[in-house]
């Protein structure tokens, strides 16, 4: 199996990488490269970002900044990320493919790929994540997912605010190596809930109305959770695909949102 590729380029600066990227529609930036074969049939130039130290994970008091070339394995094994919201991002990474893939797949590649079944998005969304682009600067992950732009840019890093909070993450899949049938992330931080559902089979989103409803409640019992789930099912689109029917997915939403909210409440108390 060969990739039809004219040139593999190691540019000397990010600016050079950026100009090369803009030069030709068939020039691409290589992330981890694990699934190049599945996403592009051929390329003029493949541009490597390997020499710019974009693989660092920088931890400050209130912020974790993950370089776009950091591998999923690096993220999975990072202690500070493991301590963030009960390690929901670590868990999300951990359940992706095998360790060999995670040693080359990068968070940048994963974010930019916009694969709807991605396990990373729900975790990042509930942690109020920001993306840092070379030209565009900072934009929220929510905006990035909602408004795909045709403008080419280079992702430099992913910023996550460090806060005290409880987290819940669940990926439902047929086997340990399969893509998700549906995935969930819930955090409770500063007494407010953030809930995200993904792979529905659509790309992950936040359940704003359900979150708003829950955040207004003085106490949360099964009744409030059930109501929140109804609201969530109104705002988040769920459908069928080859992995699951719509009805079954809806059942999973009911089960795991309930279990997740109960868990973050139980852990909090």
């Amino acid at each position: 199996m060969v990739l039809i590729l004219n040139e593999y380029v190691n540019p000397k600066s990010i600016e050079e990488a950026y100009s090369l990227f803009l030069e030709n529609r068939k020039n691409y930036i290589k992330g981890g490269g694990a699934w190049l074969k599945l996403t592009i049939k051929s390329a003029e130039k493949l541009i490597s970002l390997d020499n710019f130290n974009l693989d660092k994970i920088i931890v400050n008091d209130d912020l974790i900044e993950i370089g776009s070339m950091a591998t999923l394995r690096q993220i999975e094994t990072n202690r500070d990320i493991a301590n963030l919201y009960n390690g929901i991002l670590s868990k999300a990474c951990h359940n992706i493919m095998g360790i060999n893939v995670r040693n080359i797949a990068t968070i940048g590649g994963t974010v930019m790929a916009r694969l709807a079944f991605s396990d990373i998005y729900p975790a990042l969304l509930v942690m109020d994540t920001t993306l840092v682009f070379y030209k565009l600067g900072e934009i929220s992950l929510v905006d990035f997912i909602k408004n795909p732009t045709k403008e080419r840019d280079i992702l430099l890093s992913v910023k996550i605010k460090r806060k005290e909070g409880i987290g819940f993450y669940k990926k439902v899949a047929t086997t340990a190596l399969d893509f998700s049938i549906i995935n969930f992330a819930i955090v409770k931080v500063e007494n407010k809930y953030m809930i995200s559902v993904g792979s529905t089979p659509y790309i992950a989103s936040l359940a704003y109305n359900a979150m708003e409803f829950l955040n207004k409640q003085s106490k949360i019992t099964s009744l409030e959770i059930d109501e929140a789930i109804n609201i969530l099912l109104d705002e988040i689109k769920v459908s069928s695909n080859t992995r699951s029917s719509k009805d079954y997915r809806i059942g999973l939403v009911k089960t795991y949102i309930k279990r997740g909210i109960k868990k973050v409440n139980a852990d909090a108390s």
Partner: protein
Amino acid sequence: MKVVNKRIPSVDGLGIMKGRPAFTDDFADKNSLIIKIKRSPHAYARIKKIDDSLAKQLPGVVMVLTHKDFPRVPFTRAGQGYPEPSPHDKFVLDEFVRYVGDEVLAVVAIDEATCDKALSLIKVEYEVLEPVLDFEKAIDNLSIIHPEPEIHEMFPIGFEPKRNIASSYAMHIGDLDKALKESDVVIEETFYTQAQAHVMMEPHTVNARMDYQERLVIYSATQTPYHVRRIISQALNIPLSRIRVIKPRVGGGFGGKQAIHGEMFVSYVTLKTGKPSKIIYTRKEVFESSYTRHPMKLKVRLGATKDGVLKAIDFNVLSDTGAYGEHALTVFMVVGSKVLPLYNKVDAVHFYGDVVYTNHTPAGAYRGYGAIQGNFALESAIDILCEKLGMDSILFRQKNMMKEHETSPIFAIMGEGTEGTPMDMDTCKLDECVSRGTKLIDWYKKYPRIDMGDKIKSVGMAIAMQGSGIPYIDMGSATIKLNDDGFYNLLVGATDIGQGSDTVLAQIAAEELMTSVDKVIVYSSDTDLTPFDVGAYASSTTYVSGNAVWKAAKEMKSKLLIEAARILKCKIKDIEFDGKEFKSSNGESITLIDLSNQITYSEDQKQLSVTSSYVGHKSPPPFMAGFIEIEIDKETGEIDILDYVSVVDCGTTINPKLAEGQVNGAIVQGLGMAMFESVKYSKTGKLISNSLLNYKIPTRLDIKNLTTEFVDSYEESGPFGAKSVGEIGIDTPPAALANAVYNALGVRINTLPITPEKIILALKEKESK
């Protein structure tokens, strides 16, 4: 016994772990021409026009092969004994393409990139025809998949291609209607089993070269080198003597390599160009364009008296053989012949049905070979029957199942494609398997279920049988040759595809020759150098090939004693041989090493060599009882398998650890079929599950524990008491799981795979009633 029934490491495991070249592509000539197949995008079409002019002009393209280049000789790709029970319904390339992935033409070029470029330059015009994609609508469908006049059966198998029937079969014992009338309780159920993919780790590959005798030498990842040689000879009109087929190490087969894959193309290309050539299937091609398990519909009726005597079994089966009829009849018959005798004391049996063509990926041989489909239906039905009878399903089985020294009339009636062979169960420890398994899993503490809150734990079980080779058809042979320095070469046609036959056969020889395995050097599966063997299928290797090895070893021992007697100047009966030394009662002695050196170099020189063959007169079934313990989420239906207990009677385990490995590997493959593996097509007949990203097999995390035991059993007709064990492990998981799910939640899933989604749907339907 010193070597047999001992844990001996395999003779080849270490070398392979260390990365030595061992598999087919490792031996491909570095300058091999690359062959790639253009495959049909349509489920059913006629090729109207091929424009390959641009491709042929591309530098590096050697040739483009279409159906016009091959002799119009129909054959079957199935690796079976001759004459094959499968219809001869395949041409190397044809004007018609019959499934998405079928071969349209072949491009031959100097490297892969050129092949790909050439393929993209070829334009094919098709007349798209109406495909048959529902096997329940295949018979007498307006669309006839095989209209060719030249195709034929080799002997009557019920071949009616104009009706889209590849094969039909019917048998009965006793009077079914009467037996049902005399039953107090009758149940009727319909089951569906899906197509399963083998997913052996090594994709199919073949390479060929001409040797300096101008002979075609083929290295193929195959389970049946001798059948490959014969089929190529017939299809391409080449004398058998000009072909040599070598099977190197094979990275798994499970039946998926028990048929021709790329051998025709490399043979043609190498003969035509004189140059080495090779073909490697991509994983996508393995899924789309090799073989699958036969999906089936099984309509079952069982009748029993109220005190739990099973009286009647009615099995009406429809099997989908896909675009070509490899293994059509034989798999179909095993649904009956290696399942129904489990309940041998019934008054009446009716087993009948059809195998139909559809425009799906061809179905073929797959471990279990019909027994897993039949077992799912029968063992589920037995539990359903017991529920209706209000009887304990274990007690019911123990009352009605096969026992040692009993027989079943089915054995005489049903063979593999032809009549069968009557036989008594000289060994059948099924009762011990059931009681031991019941104990090991702690059945009565856990049956039917334990409510854990969010989850429920439950247990389910099933019994199974298989066979040991095909009597009067499967032949295996072995040559043993003595070398100087007192070690032996063991040459066998038997095909090691990872199941360890090289090792097991070396153990049998070593035991009989009273030596150690490292003094028996095995070389296998080379049609020039090793004696004939049908190959690795029908669980024949340990029993059939093993018996051939045993015979050969005994004969070698006799020959050794003749030489020793000559050298020690005494009578044979006065010699004691312990494997290392010959001692005569007159005090003289000679070591085997000295004897071998003497007859090689010094005096009365000769090469001691023995070839023996064996054909079975019976096929003593291995038996087993399988028990599953699951934990199931009440709300989502997700299942965790906590344990799978297997208690097996396969006679002597020549190599207990390798036998355990066979059972465990098969159990996991069976669990995959039971729980989630599913070959899926789109509405237009395109395979959706054509990648390992979409077709999932069990991973390490999905298998928590397997408990496997073998009961004491000694089959007189088998080598050192052995029966075979390669397939039986795969049969019980589907029914055991279905029964466990019923025990847990009271819902009966009759279609495989048993997915969480199906369970929840069934629960909802149950609640709404």
